[in-house]
Every structure is written in structure tokens, then in C-alpha cells.
């Protein structure tokens, strides 16, 4: 009969092996329970960590794009508000022009209307030079007022009588657009060319809102009713232009909101996948931990029993 020689030393070694490996398994489960994570170090699941890292980057990008979109929505809303303001001013000018066109209006009344128009014009210029967080809204990329002359987006020029007779753009150019990145490789304009809103065809060109007001004011001053009527048409073109852009801005906000919704959904999906890879199934781990605990106790008990006895106890 061939029996391998089993002796105390071997029993000790094997018992130790069994106890240590049972403890090791228990410790791994314990770590999962303590951290709540299925992957606690790279080598636990290298491929999983690689994938999880990608999801994490996606999640961070999504967060960031959502921030960008929100700040984009804010600046476009701000443009919208100012455009509504401009629309209101232009309609008031139009009402005044219609009033001045009445034959019964006296010359002193006309003078008053012209003054009123001048005030509205000033208000329109202020609107076109309005700032948010210290930066011009309608200045294109020339967002800061520099030290040089005419550094506002729209600069009024006065004639000898002190009337505004011209509104000139910042010579550095206000037509550069600014885009924001709202998702990978997708840029959305959040600041349009500043000229498009009030002088779509350049200084003094068609639909120049300032010029339309200036011409009306002069016609009213000069009691030239035909010119007043023609001027109202010019003003209508400028108003149409402003209203067009209001709807363009509305559509742009809508587009950003839809993108935002889509990113939110993608974010949810990414979070779910990430959690699937990284997070431990607590119920499963707890059950495994329980059974591993029993195995550990059993191995301890077996070790203590088998190492106690030797022939010495019986001789």
C-alpha cells in the first residue's frame, strides 16, 4: 500500500494555506462591501476600467457641454430681450412718425416729436451698446471698449446743431461671430455679427434702423410729409429685420434646448453603464461574503482540531 507520508508539518502547512486563502477571498468581498465598488484596483478588471474611463470622460464632457449650452441660452436670451427693447423703441418712433404725418400737427408739436424721436434714437443706441458681464452684446468679438476712439459697437456722430446725424460701427469690425461648442465638433453661434441686427447692409444701407430714425426725425423737422411717409417704409424694413432676428434667436434657443435634452439622456445612459461596470451588486456580494465567512470559520476549526492531536496524547 502506497500512502504518502502525512505528518504534522504538512498538516500545519495545508491548514495555513486553507485559512489564508479563505481569509483572502473574504477580504476581497469585504473590500467590495466597504467601497461599494466592484472594481477597486486596475487589475480587478482592466478592460472594465478602460471602458469605465471612457464613460467617465463622456460624462464629464456632457456635464460641460450642458454648462456651455446653459450659458449660451443665457446670452441668446439676453440678445432677445434687447431686440424686443429695440422693437418697442422702433414702434414708438413709427407711432410718432405717423402722428407727425397728420396735416393738423403744428410746427411746435413737430419740433417736440422730433425731440422725442431724438431721445428714442439715443435709447436705441444705448440698447445697441448694451453690455452683459461687462461685454458688449452686439460688438461681435470686439467685446471690450478700448482706449481708442469709437470703441463702442455703435458710435453716434453729431452735426453742428448737436443732433445725431450718423451712427458708425466700431472700425475694428463688429461682425465676427462667436461660437460655443455644444457637443463634439458642433458649434452654435451664441453671438452673431453685431451689424446684422441694426445695420444689416452696412452703415446707411437698407434697413439701417438708426438711419431710418434719423431720416424720419429730419423729415419731421423739415415738415417734409412725403419724406416722412417714405421714411416710415424704411423704418418698417428695419423693424422687420429686428423681428426676424428675434425669431432667429428664439429658434436658436430651441435648438440649444433640444441639444441639452439629448445630452441629458445620453448622460443618464452613460451613468447607468458606468455604474454597471464599476458598482458592486451589494446583495450578491453580501450573500457571497456570508458564505465565505462560514468557509473561513470552518477552515479555522478544522485546523485547530487536526493540529491538536498526535500519538503523544495516547502513550
Amino acid at each position, binding site marked *: 500500500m502506497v500512502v504518502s507520508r502525512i505528518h504534522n508539518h504538512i498538516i500545519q502547512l495545508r491548514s495555513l494555506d486553507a485559512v489564508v486563502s479563505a481569509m483572502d477571498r473574504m477580504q476581497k468581498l469585504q473590500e467590495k462591501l466597504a467601497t461599494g465598488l466592484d472594481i477597486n484596483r486596475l*487589475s480587478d478588471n482592466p478592460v472594465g476600467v478602460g471602458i469605465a474611463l471612457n464613460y467617465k470622460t463622456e460624462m464629464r464632457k456632457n456635464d460641460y457641454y450642458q454648462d456651455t449650452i446653459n450659458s449660451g441660452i443665457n446670452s441668446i436670451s439676453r440678445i432677445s430681450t434687447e431686440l424686443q427693447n429695440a422693437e418697442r423703441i422702433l414702434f414708438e418712433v413709427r407711432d410718432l412718425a405717423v402722428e407727425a404725418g397728420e396735416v393738423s400737427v403744428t410746427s411746435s408739436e413737430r419740433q417736440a416729436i422730433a425731440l422725442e424721436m431724438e431721445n428714442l434714437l439715443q435709447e436705441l443706441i444705448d440698447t445697441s451698446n448694451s453690455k452683459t458681464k461687462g461685454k458688449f452684446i452686439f460688438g461681435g468679438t470686439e467685446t471690450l471698449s478700448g482706449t481708442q476712439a469709437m470703441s463702442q459697437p455703435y458710435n453716434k456722430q453729431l452735426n453742428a446743431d448737436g443732433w445725431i446725424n450718423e451712427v458708425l460701427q466700431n472700425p475694428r469690425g463688429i461682425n465676427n461671430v462667436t461660437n460655443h461648442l455644444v457637443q463634439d465638433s458642433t458649434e452654435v453661434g451664441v453671438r452673431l455679427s453685431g451689424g446684422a441686427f441694426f445695420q444689416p447692409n452696412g452703415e446707411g444701407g437698407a434697413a439701417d434702423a438708426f438711419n431710418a430714425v434719423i431720416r424720419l426725425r429730419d423729415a419731421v423737422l423739415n415738415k417734409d410729409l412725403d419724406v416722412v411717409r417714405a421714411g416710415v417704409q424704411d423704418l418698417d424694413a428695419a423693424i422687420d429685420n429686428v423681428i426676424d432676428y428675434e425669431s432667429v434667436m428664439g429658434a436658436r434657443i430651441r435648438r440649444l434646448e433640444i441639444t441639452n435634452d439629448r445630452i441629458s439622456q445620453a448622460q443618464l445612459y452613460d451613468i447607468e453603464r458606468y455604474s454597471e461596470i464599476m458598482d458592486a451588486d451589494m446583495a450578491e456580494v453580501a450573500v457571497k461574503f456570508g458564505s465565505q465567512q462560514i468557509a473561513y470559520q470552518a477552515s479555522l476549526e478544522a485546523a485547530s482540531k487536526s493540529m491538536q492531536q498526535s500519538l503523544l496524547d495516547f502513550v
Partner: protein
Amino acid sequence: MGTFSALNIGEQALKMSQLALEVTGHNIANVNTDGYTRQRVEFTAGAPTETGFGQVGTGVMLDQIMRTTDIFIQNQLAEEAQILAARQRENDVFKQVEAIFNEPADNNFSSVLNNFFDSMNALSAEPESSSVRSMVVESGHLLTESIQSLNQRLEDVRTRIDESIALKVNDVNTKIQQIAELNEKISRAETSGMFQANDYRDKREELVTELEQLMDVTVVPDGTDSNTISITVAGAALVHRNQFYPITADLNADNHYDINSTQTSTAIPITNGELKGYMEGRETILPEFQDMLDVLAKDIIFNVNSIHVKGVGLDGFQDITSHNAAYAPNTKLNRAGLPFEPTDGSFHISVYDSDKNLIETQEITVSGAVNSLEDIRAQIDAMANVTATLTVKNELNIKVDNIAGGANFTFVGANGESDSSNFLVSMGLNTFFTGTSAEDMEVNEVIDNDLNKIGAASMYSPGDNGNLLDIINLRSKLTMTNGTSTFDQYYGGIVAKVGLQTEESNHQYETSQSIVSILEQRLLESTGVSLDEEVVNMIKFQRSYQAAAKFVSGVNEMILTLFNSF
């Protein structure tokens, strides 16, 4: 054949039983001694003497006290233990690398990289804001510090390995000295007497096993019945009979230890054992990850810089010195030792007055194979409002003439033309980062000193963020490994590689461990002391001692009877 010869048989039997009891006692005493091999007494019957009645036995004699070992398993164990030792050291290295990369923790390189692009994104919403600009610089610093520290910590592990190598070399020397001494003792004991020096041999075997765990050696038995052994490595002797030749750890050109023999004064190849594990970690495992970090750092530097040089800050430059230098003023640029190679193309220098009105713009044409740095300098210097000089270190300095009047210049043409020649990137002019590897990657000191030099715009206009959008897009651009992965994915690849190799090393280590433990148990089966067995033996020899004593007293009675009859 007389009556007294029976007393001799009895005496011999008593002696032998006592000896056997002593060996049993020795075994029991060493039940927990590592490397101890169970000893067994072997008896033989005494030579018979011729009598008139035929041959009569003369009792018991000692044949030998032998060690119960299994050479086959012993050799196998030595081999596997050597592999285990190497794998254990490799595994140590992997565990450290794994801890250094610190995934999947929250504060890892990946989040630092994302942070950098996030800050660029924030700046794109407000390019004029100096607080966001400083955030960009800070996150740039965080990025360079992170990659530097990853690289440095890998390098630290290499340094620590060197320290361990030096210690292990001392270990080897102590062991071969002891083996040489034991050679002498064994040979002296065995040539003078007829018995094996069991305990000395045990000790020598243990030392050889320990030595083999440190490095792969060749053990050659020599002397009578191999009472001495010689140990060599690739032709260099470590031990010869009672002589030993220490090995030394000497610093090589890379400031790391090489192991040399004092006998042959040549390098000793390390092919197995702990030292092999250390060497593997220092020369293969760690440099591989360092190389990957270098590739990542270099690509981030090159790609971000390539876009950044096309940008314009809030202010232009007045006096700028290139960060990089050419070997010599007249060497062709593509051979001038620049970190990135200039190609054929051109860049622009545009000079503005203090109100940012354009005064002069000039296209500078570059051909890497034709032009030297001096050629380029001369082209720039020919401009009316700019002076270009070379420093003593062959860096390029460009200075606008009317500094006091607030004149300044940009590297973008009047119509937004930008560098198509790589010249600015390779010289380190208007770049965001400097350096070429994980070790020396830094934020350009020009930007560090003046936030307005961050080239956010692609034209000279404060609210423009065109250039930033291009930099941010790098985040999702497939710039690495021949256009198949983004920075983040490449880093993910490094991390996955660390993980996979660590996992593999863990498996190998565990497998080796279980093989060794099985073999150890197998060997123990023959060499180990079983207390049960020893107790049985003890009873056996006690009883035979009692019986022999009884025999002696029996013979004594016989003799007394004979005496009393007179």
C-alpha cells in the same frame, strides 16, 4: 566463542538503541527547523564468526545515519522556487505601478486632462476674462505636474529597485562565503571519518536553494562524493571549493546598477531568480510605461501647441525669446536638433500700434531642408519695425522697435493667415506648453507670466474664441497611435495595459506559488519529521534498549551461575 562475547552483543545492542534514540530525539528537536531533513539510522547485522557449530552472528552494527530526501523533487523545487522568486519581484513592481496610476480613483490623470479641456471650454465662453484665463493656466500646471509626477514615481520605483539590487548582491556574497566555508567543513569531516556530515550538508543545501532564489547559478559537485561543490554563472566562478569570489553592483552609464564578477571582471547575466525580477522591472516593465507616458506628453504638447501658435492673445508680443534653441545658427532647421521638425511653409508677423492698428505685416517663408535659423532671423530682421537676433544659446529673439510707444506684434497675418511651417512649434514661440516628454513638460513661462498671452483668438480681437474651439476639439480628435485614439483613449490604453499586465502577473505569481507549495509538500513528505512516527520509533528503540538490557542481565546471571557453582 566465549560467554563474554554475548556481553559484547548486548553492549552493542544497547549502544545502537541509544544512538537510534538520540537520532529520534534530534529529529523531534528539529521538527520545526526549516531546511532540516529527517535522519534515519540504518543498522546492519555484525559479521558472523566461525565456530565449531557453524556461523554465529555478532550482533548489530551501525551502517549509516542517512538523510531521507528526494533529489528529484528537490531539484524541481529549486527550479520552481527560482521562478517564483523572479515573479514575486515582478509582481511587486506591477503592484506599485498599479498604485501609481491610481485608477479607478477620482483624482487621476484622466480627470486632470478633462479638467484642462474644461477650463479651455470655460475660457471659450469668456475669452476676455482674466480669472478664467488664470484657471486655464492653473489646470495646465496641474496637467503637466500630474504627468511629471506619474513619470517621476515610476522613476522612483526604478531607484528603489536599484537599492534592493545592491542589498541582494550583498546577500549573494554572504551566501557564497558561507557555502565556501561549509565546503571546507564537509570535506574535512567526510575525509577524516567514514560518515556523511548530514547537518552541514543540510545547511549547504539550504544556502544553495536560497542562492538560487536570488539568481540562476550552475552548481557543479566535485570532491570525493561531492563533498565540495563549485558554483558558476556564465563562466564566472562564485565558489570553488573553499574559495569564493564576490559579485559587485556597479553604477552604469544610466546611473543604474550592473552586476559584475570580481573573478572575471565582466558583467554577469542575470537570467532568473529575484535579481532577474528586479532587472525585468527596472529595464522592461517600468521603462515601457514611461515610454507610453512620453508619447502621450509629446503628442499633447505638439497638438496643443500646433493650434496655440495660430492664436492671438489679448495683447501682442513686444519682446519674445524662443524656448527652444538650434544647435548652430547655420545648420539647416530640420537637422538643428529642434524637438519638432519644421516643414515647408510660412508664418506671419504682424506689427500693430498701441491702438491695435496694423502697421506692417510680413510673410516669413520656411523650408526645413533649405533654411537655417540664421536665414529666418534675417528675414524677420528685414522688417521695418522689428529686430530679430540670436542669443548666445542660439535661441531666436524677436523685439518690436517702438516698445515705449506700445507697438506690438502677433504671429498671425492681417487676414488670419497662420503658421503652416511648424516653425513656431519647433522653436517654442507662442506655444502653450514647453518640453517634449513626460519629464520636462511645462506650461510655457511666457503664458505663466502674462495670462493675456493665451492665444484664445484666431484674430486680434478680444471676444474671439476661434482658436480655443480648435484646442477643445482636440479632446475628441483621434490624434494618437496613427489617428486611432484620442488623448483620453490613449491614456485609457496605458491604464488597461497596466491592469492587464498586473492581472497576468498576479496569475503567474499565484500559479508559481501553488506549484512551489505543492512541491514543498511533496518534498516534506520525505524530509519532514512526523511526530507520530518519531514517537513510534521512540517506543521501538526504548523497547529494544530494554530488551538488550534484559539480555545483558540474562548473560550476567548466566555468568554468575557459573561462578557460584565453584
